[in-house]
């Protein structure tokens, strides 16, 4: 290939490489270096090379239960994001004029507030004598305050709130690309609204569902602040496992090994998803 390229093409390629160099150096320094260092740490013990950090996955039950809980919460958040995000994206994709930017703007609005602030906001809303419990008690719906925070529910709720845009935006983009004529064709052929939605619109929007699900799922796997603040110690997710290992035990090797395992799992999820839809579509570049 390079034999066939002309001197101009080669010069152009060198130029492009040169222009990319600053970005490549930044990515190399700030992303690749820590990853390599982390990988190296995970195999290092007091007496040099060791597999002891990885062996703990099979001996320490906290590891297993933490990973199981993390995946369960990621799964719940993803399902909830589909159920809530799909109708929002649908309405935005189908509405006209100024409505799509308004709806998408409302979806994106939370992005402008820090995750920490939003987590505390949920704490205030959901706590024992919070707004939700007070309102429900006053309305006579409940006698006893519901336990809405310091458990998985609070974690799922707040994480969902923060990650919902990652479901809505790919869904919206996919739905916008479904030609309106397909639904018109479905109707002209005798299909009622339900049938046309089920057999035409829904299947064609699936790439968006998959893209959004992968993003939300993967991001939840590594989420830290909301489970820490709203889990109340009842949720012990992988991210917290990592932080405890460093903060309390100063165990960089153990923390690194957990991160490496989580990273490998995330890569595996992307790999699986890319067998269904191309990676570029998940990341929204196509």
């Amino acid at each position: 290939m390079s034999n066939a390229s002309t001197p101009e093409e080669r010069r152009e390629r060198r130029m492009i490489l040169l222009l990319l160099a600053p970005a490549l150096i930044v990515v190399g320094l700030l992303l690749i270096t820590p990853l390599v260092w982390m990988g190296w740490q995970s195999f290092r013990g007091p007496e040099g090379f060791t597999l002891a950090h990885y062996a703990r996955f099979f001996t320490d039950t906290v590891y297993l239960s933490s990973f199981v809980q993390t995946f369960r919460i990621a799964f719940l958040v993803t399902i909830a994001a589909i159920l809530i995000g799909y109708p929002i994206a649908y309405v935005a994709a189908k509405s006209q004029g100024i409505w799509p930017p308004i709806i998408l703007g409302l979806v994106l609005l939370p992005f402008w507030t820090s995750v920490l602030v939003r987590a505390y906001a949920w704490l205030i809303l959901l706590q024992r004598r919070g707004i939700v419990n007070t309102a429900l008690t006053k309305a006579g719906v409940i006698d006893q305050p519901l336990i809405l925070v310091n458990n998985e529910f609070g974690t799922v709720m707040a994480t969902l709130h923060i990650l919902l845009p990652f479901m809505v935006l790919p869904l919206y983009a996919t739905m916008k690309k479904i030609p309106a004529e397909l639904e018109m064709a479905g109707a002209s052929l005798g299909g009622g609204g339900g049938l046309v939605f089920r057999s035409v619109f829904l299947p064609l929007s699936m790439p968006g569902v998959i893209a959004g699900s992968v993003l939300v799922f993967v991001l939840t796997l590594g989420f830290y602040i909301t489970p820490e603040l709203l889990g109340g110690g009842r949720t012990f997710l992988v991210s917290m496992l990592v932080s405890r290992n460093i903060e309390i035990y100063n165990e960089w090797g153990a923390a690194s090994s957990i991160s490496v395992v989580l990273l490998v799992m995330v890569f595996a999820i992307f790999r699986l998803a890319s067998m269904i839809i191309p990676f570029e579509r998940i990341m929204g570049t196509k």
Partner: protein
Amino acid sequence: MPTSLHPQKVGVTIRNAVKRYGTFSALDDVSIDVAPGEFLSILGPSGSGKTTLLGLLGGFVQPTSGSIHLGDTDITHMPPHKRDIGIVFQNYALFPHMTVGENITFPLRARRMPKDQWPAKLNAALEMVELTGYADRAISALSGGQRQRVALARAMIFEPRLILMDEPLSALDKQLRETMQLELKQLHAKLGATIIYVTHDQREALTMSDRIAVMKNGRLVQVDSPKELHDRPCDSFVASFIGEAMLLPVTRNGAGLSLDGQALRSAHPLPAGNDLFLTVHSEKLAFAGPQTAPEANLLPGRVESCLYQGESVRIFVTLDGGQSVSLRLPSNHSGWQMMPEQGQPVTLALHPEDTIVVPKAA
């Protein structure tokens, strides 16, 4: 022996249909009767309202006022899926995630037809469009012409009372388009369904239709048979839109007609008004010679240029009055024998029967 498809024939009546978007009229008082079994083309420039008119019939566009009847049924406010109208969309609108067979049987599924009756219908539909054996193909694995035929089969399998087609051939290359025109025509003859066919290709409309409705700015300008439309256009818009026509301004001269001071004979009554145009189709002009009829109008001029176009040579002539016309000679031996030189003075003959005068379009 597979069952064949027999759409019922039904006529269409559109009465005073108006469609406004704000103050803009996409359709402006359109009325037309389409006979059962007729092949009607809607011809018009871009933005003239053709798709809007089809949308009105399909139920995707609600008229601001007016009514639509299918046979005796008022369908003005009927939802699209109840209308039983087969539509072939401009880009076919095939469902990309379904196979050919699933696409074509969609109308049967929508009508909850028992599944054991599907294969016979599907085979008949595939056979009709000559795609037997393609049922399991993916849509992405079809050529443009094949997609068009799948769309056609899908629109016909439920034996609709009316079939609408929105520029179904515009995406195809010239050769395939001409083949498909013939196939569509044969299919129409075989089925006898009422077809309303949108195109902005005048040659396609002339080739295929029983009648042609010419649209401009949301209005129907003329509805006539291809021959009438071509030979007797009602105004300068239709005349310039149909065929290879040149319009030369002429003036009324008593009961007669004059082109730059030269008297012309026309076998047809002159239209009213003072802005008149002579419609000159290139095929109606000939070089004057011994075989020219004595009553023919003779137009002297000078050859401007000759343009070789394969099957014929188009010769541009500037008349002595300064106006430009063109005529054709076949690119065969006798044609080349008669071929004039550039700059050569010539006399063109136009028979009074072919001397068509139209008023300026509104």
